[in-house]
């Protein structure tokens, strides 16, 4: 029982807002270990001969598939939730590393577009429930369109962006009336049932003239059923945002309690992919939440993902010192990231921060290469759950990975 929280509620009568990843202990990927290659199955690969880590999304349906040089991407942080310099750092850093960054809802800054042009950057533009800032030009500017199924906070109730918290610059980019509250609905108003997802995917393909891939992003919830629906929609990739993903300025109960942890998404997602033959049709699985180093990425890939989103790690790489603990939703970010205050924003040198992000992504990708070679793979496409063992019963139960010592999957996974 949390006495302090009870006292806080008693004094204020208010729901607590929080930012960052959940604080409660969840079974993390560190409960899995990687099996080095020896006699059983394969020998280690020579890392000097190279390990392929590139990923292509939309290779079978888009005229311009999205090619990532590393199996990672930077999920979107809407302009307003973070300031201009943070956005530019994400765009610059991801371009230098040959991966993609997300825009979130709210449009693309002209400077971001210029960075993409100069450095061959790749953007993931969002089609979210509010559609603020979504124009034809915006949709067509992206290298992939992300259909975000839920609103702020993994499907929270309708909310307001209050006028006191938005700026004129944000209003201009978002195409919104300045000096007014902006509604954020919890779900797409033009999505009345699961079958409509297919309509939206088709609409996005028509609007972009079948040029770029369409990605459906879901909060990890009823994973098997919802991944099947997303696959059936004809999307090029399904992106699962796990409970460990950070949220910003949402009710604490939502941040802590709503969603399924990363470890538990892979089994049902793999099953949905196998049942539908999605892998053979070129559909990709993307995951995000709680991952930060090469071993996390390796494990996620071995469990069935094709690429990994790094929302929190990207903020830390460009200079966040709080790890989401406190000021993200107050607009007073001391690192100049989650703020629209020009005085605070000036603390972030976007070019240096972008270079730092690129350094981080390069190092992380090299870690993936080292681990893949150690596991006997010349390409990440060969990774499988057999490359892993669970070191706890919980991890084996949630992931279906063989339990170390027992050397088999737990009986519940044997049928």
């Amino acid at each position, binding site marked *: 029982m949390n006495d302090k929280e009870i006292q806080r509620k008693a004094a204020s009568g208010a729901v607590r807002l929080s930012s960052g990843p959940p604080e409660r202990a969840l079974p993390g990927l560190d409960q899995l270990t990687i099996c080095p290659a020896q006699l059983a199955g394969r020998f280690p690969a020579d890392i000097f001969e190279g390990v392929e880590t590139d990923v292509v999304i939309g290779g079978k349906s888009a005229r311009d598939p999205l090619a990532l040089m590393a199996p990672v991407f930077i999920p979107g942080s809407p302009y307003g939730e973070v300031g201009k310099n943070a956005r530019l750092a994400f765009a610059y850093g991801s371009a230098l590393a040959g991966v993609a960054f997300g825009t979130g809802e709210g449009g693309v800054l002209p400077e971001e577009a210029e960075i993409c042009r100069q450095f061959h950057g790749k953007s993931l533009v969002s089609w979210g429930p509010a*559609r603020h800032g979504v124009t034809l030009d915006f949709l067509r500017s992206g290298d992939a369109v992300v259909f975000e199924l839920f609103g702020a906070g993994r499907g929270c109730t309708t909310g307001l962006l209050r006028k006191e918290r938005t700026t004129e610059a944000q209003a201009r980019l978002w195409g919104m009336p300045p000096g007014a509250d902006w509604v954020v609905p919890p779900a797409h108003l*033009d999505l009345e049932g699961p079958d409509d997802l297919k309509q939206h995917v088709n609409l996005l393909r028509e609007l972009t003239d079948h040029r770029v891939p369409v990605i459906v992003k879901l909060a990890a919830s009823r994973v098997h059923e919802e991944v099947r629906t997303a696959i059936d929609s004809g999307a090029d990739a399904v992106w699962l945002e796990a409970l460990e993903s950070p949220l910003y300025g949402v009710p604490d109960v939502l941040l802590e309690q709503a969603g399924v942890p990363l470890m538990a998404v892979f089994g049902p997602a793999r099953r949905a992919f196998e049942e539908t033959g999605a892998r053979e049709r070129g559909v990709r699985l993307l995951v995000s939440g709680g991952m930060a180093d090469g071993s996390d990425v390796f494990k996620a890939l071995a469990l069935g993902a094709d690429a990994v989103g790094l929302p929190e790690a990207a903020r830390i790489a460009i200079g966040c010192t709080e790890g989401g603990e406190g000021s993200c*939703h107050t607009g007073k970010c001391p690192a100049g990231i989650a703020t629209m205050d020009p005085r605070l924003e000036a603390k972030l040198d976007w070019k240096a921060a972008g270079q730092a992000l690129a350094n981080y992504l390069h190092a992380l990708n090299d870690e993936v290469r080292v681990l893949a070679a150690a596991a006997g793979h010349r390409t990440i496409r060969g990774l499988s759950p057999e490359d892993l063992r669970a070191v706890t019963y919980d991890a084996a139960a949630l992931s279906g990975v063989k339990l170390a010592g027992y050397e088999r999957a737990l009986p519940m996974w044997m049928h």
Partner: protein
Amino acid sequence: MPETRLYKTEDINRAIRKQVGLGEPAPVSGLKGHDTIAVGMAAGAVVQVSGSAGDFFGALNDGGTLLLNGDAGRFAGDLMSAGELIINGDARGGVGQYLRGGVIVVKGDCKGTAGQLMKAGTIIIDGSAGADVGKYMMGGQIIVNGGLGEHAGENMMGGSLFVKGEVRSLGLNARLSAPSAEDLDRLRYLHRQYRFRAVQGDEDFNEYKKVAPESPRPLVGEAPG
């Protein structure tokens, strides 16, 4: 243009784009409920369709002039930002949701949920309009020349909803009032442009009622920003 029932949406849209790219009107005949037809049209595009359109007809229209002689499915003119979309028939739900600009005219009835979260622009429904019209509306105007169903203007925060017929029930934060002289002038102007069937003489304008937000901040809660 070819006989459309033999073609997929992708083929029809490609043919439309080719035609408007030549600077010529694109006629489409015999449409059989195809979804997402004539989406993302740019200024100068003229598309004339006969038959029944499926969902998302004319979505994200960015300045084109679109005419549908027939009924439309759901979400016609979704997230449209400029131009004109005329439906000479009925429309299923969700006409002009997320509208940012331009004019949508439905000459028949509309099933409901028109103009939800619209920010600007004009929607004219010559018949009746069903339930949940103008929910979360932030700006622009909706004119309904027939009746409105339940929850009209639910949680609207801006804009105006004019109705000539009966209002079955108002939504939260919506209040009914008489239109101002300026409002009536605007309605007269639109009538001159689009000929409302329900208006035979100037005295008919006296029957219009206005649904507007009670408060610009109706909702509790705050989204991240």
